[in-house]
């Protein structure tokens, strides 16, 4: 398959692994954070970290949109799902993310009408088919899914579908990166930048990382060769004393992003003053809500929601995992009380979550051979 087979070529992977070995300084420990959950998933699916020298450590970032949803917002979603007449729609495994009193699947079992959709367009179709009922779409995700929600809201307005409502939980990638970089307990040498978020926002918003924090960033594709090449590009920057944003994923990511997507997001959304992230707490200007022009389609204005902040379960260490402070297997409940079948924390629910990636690909401890 074009653009896929080349980037899964084992021989090319070995060559890059050799070059990486040549680019590291012996005795120095490198910590590189991959921001995006898609990268985490690829790294463990293809065993990319096994090809790296032991002094190059990959740290997983907060880039899985399900993992960062706080429990309180899940409770709000469940409360909406229980409103009389509501059809509540959400992406697949959001149904399994635990709130403080169960999941959306539990709500469904208790009689709420909760339906899984693959896109907001599916939810809009359900709204058109059920004009006498409110259809609430649980919008989550970074700038990759936000344009999709924005376009669907525009479509709902243009086509006159007043019963399509949005419970907006979209978040933006830059504020949590800023928060992580300002966190005193984290030392990082560089970032593997998000691939598909950058198709929308471009690479320019990441320029503050080298400019203000002196860390290299390489926007990366998702195939194993992409990730190895990105690690090499970061190490080369460190070796040569450079510090900039580079784009390894030029075949997909334009440096300026998708201006049409940014425009439609600007029309439909505005920034919340602050938004809570699981494990990271409240981060200023990190969440999106519907703008005044779309207030009539805002589920939060139509329904009264509990809006209560719920502390994460004590046993769960998703917060530390999301900040890259601990590895998933270092969490007390990993693989025992918390599994993909019965998750306690969000990182175990989503297939892009670091804990699920470790669990599904058999990483129960750090056992790596020296390359």
């Amino acid at each position, binding site marked *: *398959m074009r*653009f*896929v087979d080349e980037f899964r070529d084992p021989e090319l992977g070995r060559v890059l692994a050799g070059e990486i070995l040549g680019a590291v300084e012996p005795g120095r420990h490198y910590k590189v954070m991959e921001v995006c*959950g*898609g990268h985490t*998933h*690829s790294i463990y*699916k293809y065993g990319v970290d096994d090809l790296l020298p032991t002094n190059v450590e990959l740290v997983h970032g907060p880039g*899985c*949109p*399900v993992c960062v949803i706080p429990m309180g917002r899940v409770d709000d979603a469940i409360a909406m799902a229980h409103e009389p007449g509501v059809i509540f729609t959400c*992406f*697949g*495994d*959001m149904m399994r993310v635990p709130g403080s009193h169960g999941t959306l699947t539990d709500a469904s079992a208790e009689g709420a009408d909760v339906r899984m959709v*693959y*896109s*907001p*367009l*599916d939810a809009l179709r359900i709204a058109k088919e059920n004009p006498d009922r409110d259809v609430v779409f649980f919008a*989550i*995700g*970074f700038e*990759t*899914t936000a*344009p*999709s*929600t924005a*376009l*669907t809201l525009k479509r709902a307005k243009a086509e006159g579908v007043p019963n399509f409502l949005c419970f907006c939980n979209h978040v933006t990638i830059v504020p949590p990166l800023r928060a992580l970089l300002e966190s005193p307990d984290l030392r990082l040498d560089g970032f593997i930048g998000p*691939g*598909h978020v950058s*198709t*929308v926002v471009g690479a320019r918003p990441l320029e503050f990382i080298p400019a203000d924090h002196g860390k290299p960033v390489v926007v990366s*594709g*998702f*195939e194993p060769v992409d990730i190895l090449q990105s690690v090499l590009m970061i190490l080369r920057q460190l070796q040569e004393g450079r510090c900039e944003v580079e784009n390894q994923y030029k*075949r*997909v*990511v*334009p440096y300026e992003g*998708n201006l*049409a*997507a940014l425009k*439609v997001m600007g029309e439909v959304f505005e920034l919340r003053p602050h938004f809570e992230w699981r494990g990271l707490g409240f981060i200023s200007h990190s969440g999106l809500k519907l703008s005044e022009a779309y207030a009539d389609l805002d589920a939060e204005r139509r329904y009264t929601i509990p809006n209560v902040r719920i502390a994460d379960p004590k046993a769960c260490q998703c917060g530390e995992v999301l900040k890259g402070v601990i590895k998933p297997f270092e969490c007390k409940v990993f693989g025992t009380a918390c599994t993909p079948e019965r998750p306690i924390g969000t990182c175990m*629910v*989503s*297939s*892009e979550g670091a804990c699920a990636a470790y669990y599904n690909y058999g990483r129960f401890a750090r056992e790596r051979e020296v390359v």
Partner: protein
Amino acid sequence: MTSCHCITCSDEGTPMTVLRIDAERALALCESEDGARASVEIALVEPVTDGDRLLVHAGTALVHL
């Protein structure tokens, strides 16, 4: 793009090929590499023609491949 995209949030791009365009509704019938078909928003990547390959997130094409 990994072939196994996240079912949780659809927040991983699926490469799809345009089969037919519905210009009136600004949608395109697209097919993924595993044969799954879906209506996709194409407003952000226009102009689009039959046979184009698009990267699709949550039912919306974000970029030409």
